[in-house]
């Protein structure tokens, strides 16, 4: 498996999608084993590819720009005027994405065999998961923007289908629609950005565009605008302010889907896109500042919302939005390495947390944290792995989130404004607080719903297996921060040199004094959470009476959804009614119907010229002949 054959990776799940979608009724177990076998093959191939990649790096053959291979012209109009290729492009950023996507997808598929057992449309579920993986792999392997856009919409489609998987439920159908429409708004920005870049460079090839943009061939204002539009696509897909509203609602989908699509892979597509274009963003600092502040605001806002949510999955969803904000902050100060590293660790511990919450929901059929509690006695494996995930999310040392979050904070304090650092550090403390709250309310204390507690049971091996494996990954994936790990794997210069080639100074080996501060604040967050929610259950529920206005503000998501609804109702529908009036009265009744009616009126008046009497026609002919003759002789 060399880089030239990377196209095989998305090809396998595409074939599986078609097979399972069409023939799952004929297959034993509705074809789930096929999807899992295919996914396992892809994981194996990714590791072979990884070996090939590191091998070429060791041999000194590695080109920092990566390599663009298996290209053929898909569309070619006007002898090279408008060319769209299919090509795969493999570089360090791709090599971070591939294991994340494939490993989490495999875990989720195995987990789903138990979680989704007995559901209607079981085969269709696995088919769409395969479709999603195919689109996601195409996305990260794509060498040109049109192909990327195609895959971008492909993952959006899979996300839509899976959020609305339980479409019999009104709220699920609404959430699917909301997710699709909201991300579409961003996608339009992405498409405009792609067209603007094509207009300036005449190509869709990502590397050629980057080369043209970094060599100053494009006017800098024009470039700034294009890159901001491109970022608009990332804002929609990665649920950043103001298009973040869809992600909490997306929790209507089956929980394994939330783990795969709405935590680990699809939502980081925006981060991937900005990271992919990071050399260009380094040229347009205004756009980069926008990314920084959008990320910062989103991280803080979602963090506060996670603090009060009563739904175990929604807490995780807010936390995902918040952590994506962290990644964009890193991108906003140009620390691509830190962003990709956090993406890498976050994928594992957040997928773990989602699958853990799925295990709880599967056992108790409840997902409001205020109705749970004490589950540690009944579900030891789920509890242990969930705690590992929460510690990683909170940023407690030795767990993965600590290292990656530390990198981001470090990059921010080196290259960003001081107040931004303070906000992000406060958000990190918030993260620790709500992670602690979630664990305490779910697994500790007294059970608040005795009935649900009595029926709770530990999940089977198909669910706990992936949990344990992801818990291990959520711990060790942070160790990639150490150069020694890279050297132990035989990579000269360590992981940092391989993955973060273009900005090595951003990826420092741990600064222990600084890290101690980060660890201390995370710990402080945990202690605050413990002190508040560690006590009896009444106090936990009583949190809302402490500051009711603030609580209402947070529970209502800063009234952001209300605001958007008001904007849609007043401004957009108002504007639409004006446009509708114009269309109805001016365009239709005056323009289209008016023309037809005028002609109809004249036709009505003129039709009486036809008498049906032969002498009249004969006279007309005679007069006509005389007139024509007079004209012909020039009289």
């Amino acid at each position, binding site marked *: 498996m060399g880089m030239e054959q990377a196209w095989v990776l998305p090809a396998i799940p595409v074939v599986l999608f078609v097979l399972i979608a069409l023939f799952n009724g004929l297959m034993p177990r509705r074809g789930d084993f096929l999807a899992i076998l295919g996914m396992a093959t892809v994981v194996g191939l990714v590791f072979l590819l990884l070996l090939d990649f590191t091998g070429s790096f060791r041999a000194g053959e590695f080109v920092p720009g990566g390599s663009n291979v298996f290209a053929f012209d898909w569309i070619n109009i006007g002898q090279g005027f408008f060319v769209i290729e299919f090509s795969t492009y493999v570089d360090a950023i791709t090599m971070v994405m591939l294991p994340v996507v494939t490993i989490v997808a495999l875990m989720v598929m195995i987990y789903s065999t138990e979680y989704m057992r007995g559901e209607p449309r079981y085969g269709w579920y696995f088919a769409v998961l395969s479709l999603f993986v195919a689109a996601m792999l195409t996305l990260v392997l794509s060498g040109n923007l049109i192909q990327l856009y195609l895959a971008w919409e492909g993952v959006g489609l899979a996300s839509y289908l899976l959020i609305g998987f339980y479409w019999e439920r009104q709220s699920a159908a609404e959430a699917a629609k909301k997710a699709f429409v909201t991300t579409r708004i961003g996608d339009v920005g992405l498409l405009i950005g792609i067209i603007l870049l094509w207009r300036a460079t005449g190509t869709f090839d990502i590397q050629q565009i980057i080369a043209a943009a970094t060599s100053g061939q494009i006017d800098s204002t024009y470039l700034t605008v294009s890159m901001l539009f491109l970022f608009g696509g990332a804002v929609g897909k990665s649920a950043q302010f103001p298009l973040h509203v869809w992600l909490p609602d997306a929790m209507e989908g089956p929980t394994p889907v939330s783990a795969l699509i709405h935590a680990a892979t699809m939502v980081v597509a925006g981060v991937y896109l900005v990271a992919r274009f990071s050399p260009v963003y380094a040229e347009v600092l205004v756009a980069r500042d926008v990314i920084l502040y959008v990320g910062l605001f989103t991280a803080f806002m979602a963090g506060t919302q996670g603090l009060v949510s009563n739904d175990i999955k929604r807490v995780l969803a807010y936390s995902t939005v918040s952590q994506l904000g962290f990644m964009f902050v890193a991108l906003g100060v140009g620390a691509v390495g830190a962003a990709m590293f956090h993406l890498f660790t976050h994928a594992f511990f957040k997928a773990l947390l989602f699958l853990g919450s799925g295990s709880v929901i599967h056992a108790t059929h409840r997902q409001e944290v205020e109705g749970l509690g004490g589950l540690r006695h009944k579900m030891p494996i789920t509890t242990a792995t969930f705690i590992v995930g929460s510690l990683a999310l909170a940023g407690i040392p030795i767990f993965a989130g600590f290292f990656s979050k530390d990198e981001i904070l470090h990059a921010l304090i080196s290259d960003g404004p001081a107040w931004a650092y303070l906000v992000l550090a406060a958000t990190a403390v918030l993260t620790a607080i709500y992670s602690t709250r979630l664990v305490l309310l779910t697994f500790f204390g007294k059970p608040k719903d005795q009935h649900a507690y009595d029926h709770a049971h530990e999940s089977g091996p198909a669910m706990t297996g992936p949990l344990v494996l992801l818990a291990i990954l959520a711990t060790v994936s942070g160790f990639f921060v150490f150069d020694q790990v890279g050297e132990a794997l035989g990579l000269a210069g360590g992981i940092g040199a391989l993955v973060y080639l273009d900005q090595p100074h951003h990826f420092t080996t741990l600064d222990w004094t600084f890290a101690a501060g980060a660890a201390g604040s995370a710990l402080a967050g945990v202690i605050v959470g413990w002190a508040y929610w560690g006590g009896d259950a009444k106090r936990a529920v009583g949190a809302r009476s402490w500051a009711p206005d603030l609580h209402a503000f947070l529970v209502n998501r800063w009234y952001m959804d209300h605001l958007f609804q008001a904007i849609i109702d007043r401004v957009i529908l108002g504007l639409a009614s004006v446009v509708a009036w114009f269309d109805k009265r001016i365009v239709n009744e005056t323009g289209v119907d008016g023309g037809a009616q005028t002609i109809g009126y004249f036709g009505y008046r003129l039709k009486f010229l*036809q*008498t*049906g*009497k*032969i*002498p009249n026609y*004969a*006279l007309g002919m*005679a007069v006509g002949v005389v007139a024509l003759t007079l004209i012909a002789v020039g009289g």
Partner: protein
Amino acid sequence: MIPIENFLILSALLFAIGFYGVMARRSAILILMSVELMLAAVAINFIAFATYLDADAFSGLVFALFVITVAAAEVGLALGIVLRLYRERRTANVDEADSLKW
């Protein structure tokens, strides 16, 4: 040789009579006969000019033959229509056959 004016006057008279017949008569048969008169006027014109302008050329004469042929065909067709009309309406008065309108 008879001067050409005589032929032209004859032809014009025939044409005018035919035209009057087409305009003034109401009977389909009479209108047809008037049309025949007009065609005959045209044929006379052809022959007169053919002989006066170039006595060796046949083109004018051939045209006259064509006119006669067309006239015969036209009568054959038109009489058929008139016959149908009469069978249908018990009249050959064209004023009464005016339903082909709005």
